[in-house]
């Protein structure tokens, strides 16, 4: 991909890339959500050097940082790299500029999901979304429901592969057959709705100053559950 390759050579490319391939507001949006100053990055590559997963990524963490600054919104949000971040915070503690790179990565993942830009080859988004749905249902995680929901969304045959682990856990008394519901589930759902409202009101503010904002595509049935 010619555009992505050109980011290797650093800030100069920002001036030579044609305007229409770049999102001018993307860097600001990422800074706003993550609370991190991405312009402080000096492209030293310490994040990449510290990353245990960098070898699996299509773009290294250092390059992702530069691609965000360049405004390569589509390329960043559709990259596989962001889904290989395990949130281990190694880059964060080593960054000489004090940037919490992990928070930037989390922001990019959430933006990709909201924009519906997720690489279909990666199962992590389906896992995270299944997690959220089980949370909405019970208020506490229930591992058997989670892995079943996840398998049904990705590859239903997965359930078979999970059986030995399930039996192993069950034999050792480490599986809860029934979900454990959090007390105050109604309150928890009100909390989730309040999060949506806070975000919506901020999105409205952002739109006024010209920041492009995506709405979360709601999963089927989620509205019903959220009530």
């Amino acid at each position, binding site marked *: 991909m010619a555009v992505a390759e050109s980011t290797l050579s650093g800030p100069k490319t920002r001036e030579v890339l044609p305007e229409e391939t770049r999102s001018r507001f993307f860097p600001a949006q990422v800074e706003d959500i993550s*609370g991190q100053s991405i312009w402080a990055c000096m492209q030293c590559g310490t994040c990449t050097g510290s990353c245990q997963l960098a070898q699996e990524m299509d773009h290294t963490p250092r390059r992702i940082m530069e691609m965000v600054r360049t405004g390569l919104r589509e390329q960043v949000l559709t990259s596989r790299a962001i889904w290989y971040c395990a949130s281990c915070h190694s880059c964060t503690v080593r960054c000489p500029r004090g940037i919490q790179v992990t928070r930037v990565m989390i922001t990019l993942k959430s933006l990709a999901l909201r924009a519906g830009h997720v690489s279909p080859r990666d199962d992590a988004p389906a*896992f995270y979304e299944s997690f959220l749905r089980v949370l909405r249902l019970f208020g506490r995680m229930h591992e058997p429901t989670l892995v079943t929901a996840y398998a049904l969304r990705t590859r239903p045959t997965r359930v078979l592969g999970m059986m030995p682990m399930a039996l192993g856990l069950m034999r050792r008394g480490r599986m809860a057959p029934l979900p454990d519901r*959090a007390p105050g589930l109604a309150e928890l759902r009100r909390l989730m709705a309040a999060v949506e409202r806070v975000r919506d009101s901020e999105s409205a503010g952002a739109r006024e100053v010209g920041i492009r904002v995506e709405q979360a595509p709601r999963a089927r049935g989620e509205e019903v559950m959220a009530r």
Partner: protein
Amino acid sequence: MNGVPDVPVHRPSDRAANRLPEGQVNRLRYAFYPGCTAHASARDYTRSTYATFRALGIELEEVPGWSCCGSTAVSNVDPLLGMALSARNLALAESTGLDLAVTCNACYANLAPTLEAYREERRVRDRLQRVLDAVDRHLEAEREVKHGVHILTHDLGLDQVEERVRRPLDGVKAVPYYGCLLSRPRNPYEDPENPTSLDELLASLGAEVLPFERKTKCCGGSFMNTKEEVALRLTFEILEEARERGAHLIVCACAMCQLNLDAYRGKLRARYGTYHDTPVLYFTQAVGLALGLGCRDLAIGQSFVPADRLLGLR
């Protein structure tokens, strides 16, 4: 067994059973956030936590009405929701008037940084307050969140642990596995690159603590579900270093790390041709053993790779 204190079986729902006996001086008391794995895949962790803390004179009171903290998954979908869930749990914990004890690294790494951001980042505080207002909760942020390891090493003190050791782990070569989130992104008691509290804790139990380069490397976390090959590589590297160093035991402080390191040995053998038989215990189990508690109280038989045989306890 000699010198084994009589510890009643813990039932999570029975809070009164976790209170100390009448007359015993009540020095340390915490609100306790068990986390969702407490009644499931890390049931053994919870049980050994209650038994060991009680034997050390530390009282734990389950946070009333706690919910899931979101783990790392929810933040990836929705960072604000991830923090909001933690903020609500922190508010619930605060209502007990106690500092909060957490034993799962993933929970700790949600609750502690949320508290920190709430205190230090005005924008985060404003957002979270608006969300909490909607459910009539309030967070003062005047209480601390502590990992169980640091409650033992700093609040109670290593000398106090050492004093209560009845059956030292003599001759046991152990490696401490901290995982990602005990020392990162920030922990007031640890160097993020080279944490040492678990090393010191194990040494105070009489174990021989080996240097362990991968003590803070990632075990793969939830990638075991979504990118199994990647997670298996990371797990293999950790187990392989422990084996090369001649460790008898890996001691961890996280429900998810324990499961990843313990439960996939068959898959690892199929993939890499090496079978690792090093057991993985929670730090609460290792401490409890040294205190003289029995395997039953510590739920030691519930791991995939048996540890009771190695430790000659039966």
